[in-house]
């Protein structure tokens, strides 16, 4: 039996935080300059992806796990993490699924807005990802976005940034204390 495997736990905070995100996304589209005016560039050399795919992935992971009061996926190096996993870890069918997915994102961006995915506004990008997320909920074992999210969450929460700045990490706890008020700890343990 796998311990603690209760999936899809209800979140009491969805409504509240969801509202916060909507406001944040709106604010970003109104105030921030369009990404189209300055094409982003990669600061790392992909091993398994084309540059275009890597740029799309880099944008997507930051939307999946964004910087908030703590750093996000980009600061944690999640896109290069996934690229490395594509080169060394995943089965060929998983690699194909993710690469094809990145191409699909590009094609959908062109079809809907006539621009590269990376050139879209954050709101437009988020709109597309919401669509993929709804599709992935129907086909969790075969949809590229389910795989992309799994890879992003894993890459983020096992990164030094994710584990130590977003979660709490203690390599050598020393003592075990079985009943500690949540507010003393504040966040979930990374491990």
């Amino acid at each position, binding site marked *: *039996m796998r311990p603690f495997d209760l999936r899809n736990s209800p979140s009491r905070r969805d409504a509240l935080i969801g509202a916060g995100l909507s406001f944040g996304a709106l604010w970003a589209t109104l105030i921030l300059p369009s990404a189209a005016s300055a094409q982003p560039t990669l600061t790392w050399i992909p091993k398994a992806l084309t540059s275009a795919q890597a740029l799309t992935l880099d944008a997507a992971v930051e939307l999946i796990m964004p910087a908030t009061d703590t750093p996000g996926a980009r600061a944690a190096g999640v896109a290069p993490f996934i690229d490395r996993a594509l080169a060394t870890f995943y089965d060929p069918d998983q690699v194909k699924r993710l690469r094809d997915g990145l191409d699909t994102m590009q094609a959908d961006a062109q079809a809907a807005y006539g621009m590269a995915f990376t050139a879209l506004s954050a709101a437009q990008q988020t709109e597309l990802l919401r669509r993929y997320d709804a599709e992935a909920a129907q086909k969790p074992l075969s949809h590229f976005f389910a795989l992309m999210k799994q890879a992003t969450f894993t890459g983020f929460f*096992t990164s030094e940034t994710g584990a130590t700045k977003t979660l709490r990490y203690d390599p050598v706890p020393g003592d*075990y204390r079985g009943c500690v008020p*949540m507010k003393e*700890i504040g*966040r*979930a343990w990374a491990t």
Partner: protein
Amino acid sequence: MANLNTRARRKNGYDAIVVGSGITGGWAAKELTEKGLKTLVLERGRMVKHLEDYPTATMSPWEAQYPGGRLPPADLKAHYRVQQRTGYTITEYTRPFFVKDDEHPYTETQRFDWIRGYHVGGRSLQWARQTYRHSPMDFEANAREGVAVDWPIRYEDLAPWYDYVERFIGVSGQSEGLAHLPDSLFQPPMEMNCVEKHLKAQVEAKIPDRRITIGRVAHLTAPTEEQLALGRGKCQNRNLCIRGCPFGAYFSSNSATLPAAERTGNLTLRPDSIVTSLILDERKGKATGVRVKDAVTGEETEFYADVIFLCASAINTAWIMLNSTSKRFPNGFGNDSDQVGRNIMDHHLGVGAQAAAPGYEEMYYSGRRPNGIYIPRFRNLGDKASARSDYLRGFGYQGGAGRPGWERGLNGPGFGADRKAELTQPGPWAVRLGGFGEMLPYADNRMTLNTALKDQHGLPTITFDVSIRDNEKAMRKDMRLAAMEMLDAAGFKNVIGGDTGYGPGLGIHEMGTARMGRDPKTSVLNAHNQVHACRNVYVTDGAAMTSASCVNPSLTYMALTARAVDHAVAASRRGEL
């Protein structure tokens, strides 16, 4: 020892040979060397030195080569077909300590999960460290119920040796005063968390025959001077034990018995040494040594000693015996009874229940306790109230409560800042109980030599034909329902019982292949773990077990080993071997 001159003429002569360096081989080595015997320990796998050879022990998650430290699916498929069946044993972190199935093949007539670690320390390095005494009831059950054969010893024979072993290894736990789960000599217990305390209070109040205690584990919580002197320290609650402990806080051959043996100056440890057979002097009716094949060079060497301890694990000890044929033992060493390789037992598991535990959202815990809770057996204890008509023996539960971390978000909808905030908090409390059931000995649950399939060294492999029967199947139904009953009694929600399936071996408690008994016609070993028909060969690993109990067996193996060495040295000094 006797015949010093004779032996001095021999090349490769020792007072004692121990085959295997795992949990019993380490104990045999410690006891023999401390009693002054020059002892050769032969280990089929590579060297693993305490501290030096734990390459992943202090790795942080971000130092992993692969996502989450999992191995690529292609690697698992190619090399770990069986070893991955547990779901937890094969990761990037643990890979150094498990065999590759493609290098160590065997044949399954029926599914048999043979999980192995070939290296110095054996599986004492990766064991789950749960440590329980067998009870008087366990040693009497076969005789009382007419099952298989009677144990030739009783609890009282082993009790002082339990004490002796526990003082050295260090066992953390809580005394409960139960006749059917005797207390060990305990170091301070680990703490239960809020939800476990709730479960204990509710279940014990509502179902009076139940007791819930903290797991009993071979971890130091208050190290003794003897333990500190060996370089062992207090448990730091990292829960990365399976990678090897940089604090020496849990007991292993590597951290404790082998260093103790080494400091006597009497130990010779030879890794990469596959013992292929015992050498029998047909005229004297004694074993004179063992034949060894070097795992690296393939070179064959003989080693000699006055007394030989087989501690190679239940399956590999039986393999050595079956592979040691002679005019005297045409069916395998000491196998007059035809019981070698039969009566394979394990603990059947993979059945229990889980639930959600609302009401403690404001509580969490600190530290990663390498332990859970334990619910001792409560069926068929000898009284009317606990008697079952549908099966013999019983089961215990291991389990615990916790709050899942970010991994719970790997599946399911949602992304972005709200998902991040959600996964930054621990998930809702969940409780699980998993049963460990006693498996009866069945003569046709057996392993045989397969000479048609040779391993990489040209040695015969093993074919397993083992299954659970009606008794175990009936017990499993109760294991699921009784777990659900307790989680319901505690007032938990979404109680789900389940049986995720079980293949023999999955408990990694293989035993019974050279059982102890009173009658040489129906057993392989006597009351001192000597081979009935060859008294200078002792078998003290899981092979010796006449029945399985439902508790984790390593402590009993260790106690049997220390007791057998005491006998061997005394018998040898009396010239009886």
